[in-house]
């Protein structure tokens, strides 16, 4: 069988998988109850089944109805995806240990590399301006509790 719409095929599949997973998860782990006394599994089970059904419809349509050019998903932008997500995770690890003053320039420089127009000069400029700006807004302005200096400096 030929897939007529790539995007709908994969979204349909995603809906079916998530729907079935939630429906099974709620039936196995939580009490369903009765309609008169619905348990914690009642609502998620219904939603999961509904989602799986709708996902199946999307899937079916993707296999039967002709679409313009097959609606390909297209190439994934792996570079920005991995770099941006990586930068966020790096931030999560570094902030409690290294503090804001070191983590932010790190985050900004790494994230900037996701752009095709990356220049060291611009990334350094962003780092200085944004770190100073964040300090002014979040620490002075809003009094948020954010680690500022690395823990090994006693901060």
């Amino acid at each position, binding site marked *: 069988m030929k897939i007529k719409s790539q995007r709908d095929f994969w979204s349909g599949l995603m809906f079916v998988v998530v729907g079935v997973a939630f429906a099974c998860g709620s039936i196995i782990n939580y009490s369903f109850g009765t*309609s008169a006394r619905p348990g914690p599994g009642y*609502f998620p089970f219904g939603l999961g089944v*509904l989602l799986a059904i709708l996902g199946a419809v999307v899937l079916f349509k993707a296999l039967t109805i002709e679409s313009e050019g097959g609606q390909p998903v297209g190439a994934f932008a792996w570079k920005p995806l991995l770099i941006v997500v990586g930068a966020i995770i790096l931030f999560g*690890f570094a902030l409690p240990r290294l503090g804001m003053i070191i983590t*932010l320039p790190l985050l900004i420089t790494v994230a900037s590399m996701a752009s095709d127009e990356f220049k060291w000069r*611009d990334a350094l400029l962003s780092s200085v301006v944004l770190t100073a700006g964040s300090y002014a807004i979040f620490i002075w302005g809003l009094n948020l509790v954010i680690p500022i200096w690395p823990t090994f400096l006693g901060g």
Partner: protein
Amino acid sequence: MDLINNLMMGFGTAFTLENLLYAFGGAVLGTLIGVLPGLGPVATIAMLLPSIYSLDATPALIMLAGIYYGAQYGGSTTAILINVPGESSSVVTAIDGYQMARQGRAGAALAAAGLGSFFAGCVGTVIIAAFAPPLTELAFKFGPAEYFSLMVLGLIGAVVLASGSLIKAISMILLGLLLGQINTDVISGTPRFSFDVPELTDGINFVVIAMGIFGFGEIIANLGQPAEHREVFTKSVKGLWPTKQDFHDAWPAVVRGTALGSVLGVLPGGGALLASFAAYTLEKKISKHPEKFGKGAIQGVAGPESANNAGAQTSFIPMLTLGIPPNAVMALMVGAMTIKGIQPGPQVMTSNPELFWGLIASMWVGNLMLVILNLPLIGIWIKLLTVPYRFLFPAIVVFCCIGTYTLNNNNFDVFMTAAFAVVGYLFYKLSCEPAPLLLGFILGPMMEENLRRALLLSRGDWSTFLSRPLSAGLLIAAALMIVVVMLPSIKNKREEAFQDAD
């Protein structure tokens, strides 16, 4: 008169120095993000939510509302000057506005959009003040069955007006509802779908989802596209004031657009987008020179711009009176209220009258500020259009990261946001519109509670939703909406309309 008294109290609240400052700040920020491409009000409000912990509820909501309608103003500026609608609701503004700019009449187009929006904003504010109290009265008659049906109607309405496939949009709602099930069950106290992760037993914070999908997901999608070359009409903005003929042509369009927008905005599903489309069609239909449309007709700017601003204002009505958000921005406002310990719903008007009326009055103040900000200071905003994305997106990344970390002062939320960034990019690649997911996620727990309470009351009889007249009416309305959209003739029209938008 009650209305006058209430509005007086509202203006009393809105005119304190603190609230004026926050309204101003919100309006400036809103215009800014409306002008800057690749950053919408949803991501911005999500970014700011953590910082409102340190504010009082009233200034916080005033600021968030300012961002929302500020973005409507800013979005029209980019639509006119560079043919890139900053907001989906200014898509049609770009058609004639950009043509006017190319003919050297950018100033007149901006003025028509700004003054039209201001007029619509004033009318919208009065409408909210007049209609909110009676609707609140009605809402008090609602039982759990009615609330459940109302939420069904609200969710269906939200997707019927959205672009793209209807089934996929409904699936996205269900996905959002299911994500909302990751929490501790209110009635039995059982933690659900938490996989023994203690952070998940409180549920996923909606800020995490909004920032991951709308903030980071969009950044990745934007970076994945080659940098585009833009033609900016910066030098040709002179003669801001429209001519007599322009005024003569524009003002009836403004009035019609305002009327249309006010009505459509109240509908669940957030009418701002629909209102601007409908206003454009209306203007073209009744014009004596329909051939001028698409070639720089001022009515084609004034009508839709007034309509989307009126719609943006009146879409506050369901949120303020019923606690039901009609669009993603309102969903975040509901979330903001919850953060500040206010249970959204009809009781807000009586329990927090200063917040309620202050917010309404501040909308008028905010609209006035926006006219002042936008028309004389247009030069500054135009300069911002030239800020390259490579400087812009690291700033968004920084704000989102700090925002998610400070939610609970731990890095678990940061990692969750990273996961949702991937999910958001996946949705983008599969053309799954993420806004319905956020609505479903916000409404999920409320929906479940009302469903289960309704079933408890009816002893497990599902027909309670149809035997109670109000509830039945709401469900029938929801069903009708789906049927109408599925009708072949309407379906084609709908697809055509959104094709124009792309």
